[in-house]
């Protein structure tokens, strides 16, 4: 069985562990709630996190790249990963996390896969497996996801700072400006440059 098949086989278990380790980054009492409630609207953080991790995992499985692949070499691949990660990162970017805490969950995936797939193999073949090129490729993919997470995290933070900087000006001053009450502020420059 190659690693992709093994990952596919153990998908449920891996996702469950990955979700739990991600959610455990919240205060304990919050984490239990986030894990428990399944309703998408009563528990937006939990459900968005789960959904986003699932999509990211699928993106990893579908990623068709070689070991020498460099991040951002293929913009389509990159967008696929970043879009899958977006909901979970977008939430963590406004919560009580430092940058490293916000994206640390990606690296957890390596340990989870090691221990989960480990159960499929005996000790010898596990060592062999870890050294295999297909596993190295998997680790490489996780690294790419981590890079994508950094990217997305920074984008969200920039977005926040932009909203902070421009919200009041845009909302209040644009009305003043249209009325000709202020002239010094070029609103288009302020906003236009940062729209992505």
């Amino acid at each position, binding site marked *: 069985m190659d690693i992709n098949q093994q990952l596919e086989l153990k998908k449920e278990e891996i996702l469950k562990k990955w979700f739990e380790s991600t959610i455990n980054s919240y205060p*304990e009492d919050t984490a239990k709630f986030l894990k428990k409630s*399944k309703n998408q609207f009563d528990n937006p953080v939990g459900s968005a996190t789960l959904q986003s991790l699932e999509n990211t995992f699928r993106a990893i499985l579908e990623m068709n790249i070689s070991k020498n692949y460099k991040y951002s070499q293929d913009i389509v691949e990159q967008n696929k990963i970043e879009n899958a990660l977006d909901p979970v990162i977008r939430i963590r970017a406004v919560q009580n996390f430092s940058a490293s805490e916000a994206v640390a969950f990606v690296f957890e995936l390596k340990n989870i896969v090691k221990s989960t797939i480990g159960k499929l193999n005996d000790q010898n073949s596990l060592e062999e497996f870890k050294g295999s090129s297909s596993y190295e490729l998997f680790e490489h993919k996780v690294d790419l996801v981590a890079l994508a997470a950094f990217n997305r995290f920074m984008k969200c933070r920039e977005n926040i700072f932009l909203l902070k900087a421009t919200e009041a000006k845009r909302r209040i001053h644009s009305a003043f400006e249209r009325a000709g009450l202020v002239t010094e502020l070029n609103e288009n420059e302020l906003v236009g440059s940062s729209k992505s």
Partner: protein
Amino acid sequence: MNQKYMLPLAGVFLLFLLAYAGVEGVGLQWLFGIVIPYLAVIAFIYGFVNRVMCWAGSAVPFRIPTTCGQQKSFPWIKQNRIDNPDTAIGVFIRMLFEIFLFRSLFRNTKAAFNRDENNKLTYSWEIFLWLGALAFHYGFLVVTLRHLRFFLEPVPASLAFLEYLDGIVQIGLPGVFVSGIVLLAAALFLLARRIFDAKVSYISLAADYFPLFLIIGIAATGIAMRYFTKVDITGVKEFTMGLVTFHPVIPPGVGGLFYAHVLMVSVLFAYFPMSKLMHAGGIFLSPTRNMANNTRAKRHINPWNYAVDVHTYEQYEDHFREKMIEAGLPVDKEE
């Protein structure tokens, strides 16, 4: 171990042992059977009345019901008369629903039945809070009412009927009363929820565990006496009738378990008015529930509505007159 529930648990055990040993060992029947119950009832009545008077003594400056449905506006828009009442009758019905059916708590379940992302039907655990609370309170109510038979002579027919209903599941001898079992089970459930549900455990205080343990203790001793140790019912009735007729007697042949039961009930009574158990009285007075949403139609009076400094139009115009005239705005005083 968690001292938030270990200490209350130890406290309740201590109470039990105190009464049991006090009666069985030292023979303090008069203390646990007569002095403490009387004191507890006095503390309960005084405390309860005092607390309610104290609440009632606070003003209700504004009419601020929480509206949970469509307001009354036009005849062609259907008003939710219960969740957003504008009349006393509506409020009365709303309060009935709150008090007897725990309507607000039931709202937790409304969102519960939903399809999740995998199109699986999911339900929330919270419906059990409503069910558990309902079972607990009704169990408690029926058990309390049933106990009136110890304090009334002759026993009224309505009480006998209640007992008949309560014992309708005819198992064993003496016949099982459903209410006691339900009360104990519901109290255990509420306790389990407090200990094992993370968010509830986080917010719980010793004061939340203590009454639960106490009630569990009361229910357990009560059940033990009825079904297992088979307490001398005639003796008990003699004792309780003595209490209500103010001619207290200590009947022979009633053991420590009974006095432990009585002590825990006494403690519950005395503890009641100074604890959260006063929610039983408070729910009637809660201004977000017991007021009609008709503040725009009927003026509410604030008893302490004092005058405040305001920035008057005259001050405003004085400040801006020139600019107002220049802009073509009408002014009261042309200068």
